[in-house]
């Protein structure tokens, strides 16, 4: 949160993303950060929801079972629709990615919680694992024929010197855009909250009692932003998962 100095409030927008060690002295010894705490919490939450959701096995599902089933079918349909029949093999991977990112984004929305997806190190590792997987899958399915991916079939041969570098560049830039998209969305959302919260402090410091009433405006904007961030949390998890599916589709089917 912003500096509450009454004299001249400043906005410390990026301070909220500072890592600190969690779990007391044991955590400090192994550099277990608050981001790791949130990852652990996210994993436990997902596993618990799926475990208890799939335990009842009722024909008419209860709330938790319905949640587990809807999540399962949503990701499964996404996989099968985008990748095709081979999507079955990649479904567990995409399912894990989607729910890990979704719960991570949602946990970050709570006050005093930490959004681990707001760190490029986290999203870059996720995006790189997808990138490396797509290369391995491409080589496994097609062998060296995979490299024809960089020259679309049917394109005139004369265009090869232009097309091939473009295709290679666009292929190599995938993990960058894939990771920066998620990280930047989460960071921008949290910074926006911080900025408008800082406006409230500035208004009360500058205008006194009148400022208290005027600062209802930034407060209202922050309330709207909560709804927007909720949408972004879902949307970015979905986008990350569907782009993973698209990249895997390219690796399996070569365009």
């Amino acid at each position: 949160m912003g500096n509450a100095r009454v004299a001249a409030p400043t906005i410390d927008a990026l301070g909220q993303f500072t890592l600190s060690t969690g779990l007391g002295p044991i955590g400090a010894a192994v550099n277990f950060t608050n981001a790791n705490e949130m990852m652990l919490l996210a994993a436990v939450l997902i596993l618990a929801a799926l475990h208890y959701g799939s335990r009842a096995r009722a024909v008419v599902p209860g709330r938790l079972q319905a949640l587990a089933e809807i999540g399962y079918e949503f990701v499964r349909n996404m996989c099968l629709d985008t990748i095709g029949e081979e999507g079955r093999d990649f479904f567990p991977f995409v399912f894990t990615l989607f729910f890990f990112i979704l719960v991570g984004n949602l946990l970050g929305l709570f006050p005093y919680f930490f959004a681990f997806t707001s760190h490029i190190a986290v999203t870059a590792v996720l995006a790189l694992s997808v990138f490396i997987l797509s290369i391995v899958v491409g080589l496994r399915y097609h062998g060296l024929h995979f490299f024809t991916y960089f020259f679309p079939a049917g394109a005139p041969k004369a265009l090869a010197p232009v097309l091939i570098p473009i295709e290679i560049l666009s292929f190599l830039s995938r993990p960058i855009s894939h990771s920066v998209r998620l990280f930047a969305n989460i960071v921008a959302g949290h910074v926006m909250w911080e900025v408008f919260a800082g406006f409230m402090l500035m208004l009360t410091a500058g205008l006194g009692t009148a400022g208290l009433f005027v600062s209802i405006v930034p407060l209202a904007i922050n309330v709207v932003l909560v709804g927007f961030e909720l949408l972004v949390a879902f949307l970015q998890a979905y986008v990350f998962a569907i782009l993973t599916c698209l990249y895997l589709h390219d690796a399996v089917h070569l365009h």
Partner: protein
Amino acid sequence: MNSALLAKDIGAGLAAIGVAGAGVGIGHIFAALVNTVGRNPAARDKVFGIGILGFALTEAVAIYALLIAFLILFA
């Protein structure tokens, strides 16, 4: 306020101009979406998902520009 800080603010303002392009893009996406649903209401469910995906991908470009502005201002 010294001139370096002022230049920082100007730079952040310039970086935020990039958001305008994404605004045009998102407008196009939803215009096309409304157009499509108007012509063929039965396709609504199918087209809506694609539209939202396009929105998220375009919005990400605006977020890049905004992030640069934030980094100039606060980092």
